[in-house]
């Protein structure tokens, strides 16, 4: 057989095998997943995100947060995820049915964010942390995302949204730092990160 034909068949075999394993089989396993509706309350889980939070998800994707942050709580057995307080139960496939693409992540240079909205529910904290990570966590290797903020001259009483910054992070006298629409959306997304609900396949231990 011609060498090119062999090469081509090798490529084809590799890609078809990967496609079956990574696309076809998961499609059969998870493709039909529906939200879980609580019969008593009529609530549907996972909850839908607001439009602003959905925009924030795109900011999250565009800024590569996924390179350092995962969004998956692994089973209690042999992992410290729950002991660290990152989540109350393990994550399951159904948690991600509205995420296109999902942002599970593969690295934990920073902490897992599956429940960022539950663990860190203060909007101002997120803005100050994104603007100056080391001001909230000494020695942090998270890069500051200052371009998501605007430094502007203080008009009158100043903006109610101005960040409270200290020492070297503070803007010059007479100026203030305010979030751009992107920063607002991103923080709305972070606050929406919440897997604190029971699913039949992954119950909260309180039930």
């Amino acid at each position, binding site marked *: 057989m011609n060498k*090119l034909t062999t090469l081509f068949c090798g490529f084809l075999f590799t890609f078809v095998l990967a496609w079956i394993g990574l696309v076809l089989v998961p499609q059969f396993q998870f493709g039909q997943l529906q939200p879980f509706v609580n019969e008593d309350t009529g609530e549907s889980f996972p909850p839908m995100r607001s439009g602003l939070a959905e925009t924030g998800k795109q900011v999250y994707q565009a800024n590569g947060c996924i390179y350092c942050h995962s969004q998956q709580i692994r089973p209690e057995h*042999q*992992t*410290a995820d729950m*002991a*660290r307080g990152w989540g109350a139960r393990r994550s399951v496939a159904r948690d991600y049915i509205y995420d296109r693409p999902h942002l599970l992540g593969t690295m934990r*240079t*920073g*902490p897992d964010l599956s429940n960022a909205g539950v663990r860190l529910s203060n909007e101002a904290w997120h803005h100050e942390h994104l603007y100056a990570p080391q001001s909230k*966590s*000494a*020695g*942090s*290797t998270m890069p500051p995302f200052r371009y998501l903020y605007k430094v502007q001259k203080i008009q009158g009483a100043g903006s109610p949204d101005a960040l409270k910054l200290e020492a070297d992070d503070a803007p010059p006298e007479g100026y203030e730092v305010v979030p751009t629409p992107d920063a607002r959306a991103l923080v709305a997304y972070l606050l929406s990160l919440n897997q604190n609900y029971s699913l039949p396949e992954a119950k909260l231990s309180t039930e």
Partner: protein
Amino acid sequence: MLQHPENPTNTFSNIVEATKPWLRGRTISGVLILVGHLAFAYHFVLMLLKFGRADGVGPTLLAKPESAAEASS
């Protein structure tokens, strides 16, 4: 200092601290591989433009063995 990452008493800030030497190493290796890629791209273009050799035989990749033998003789 060196503790297992699945040990919950090993604080996350301790883990961040422990990654730093590795992050520095990755920066250095990243620069090295970038230089390698650029060198490769440069030679690849030279090869495509047949600037690679004085006799200008062009790409040897996927060339038939006999024509390669001819070229080298």
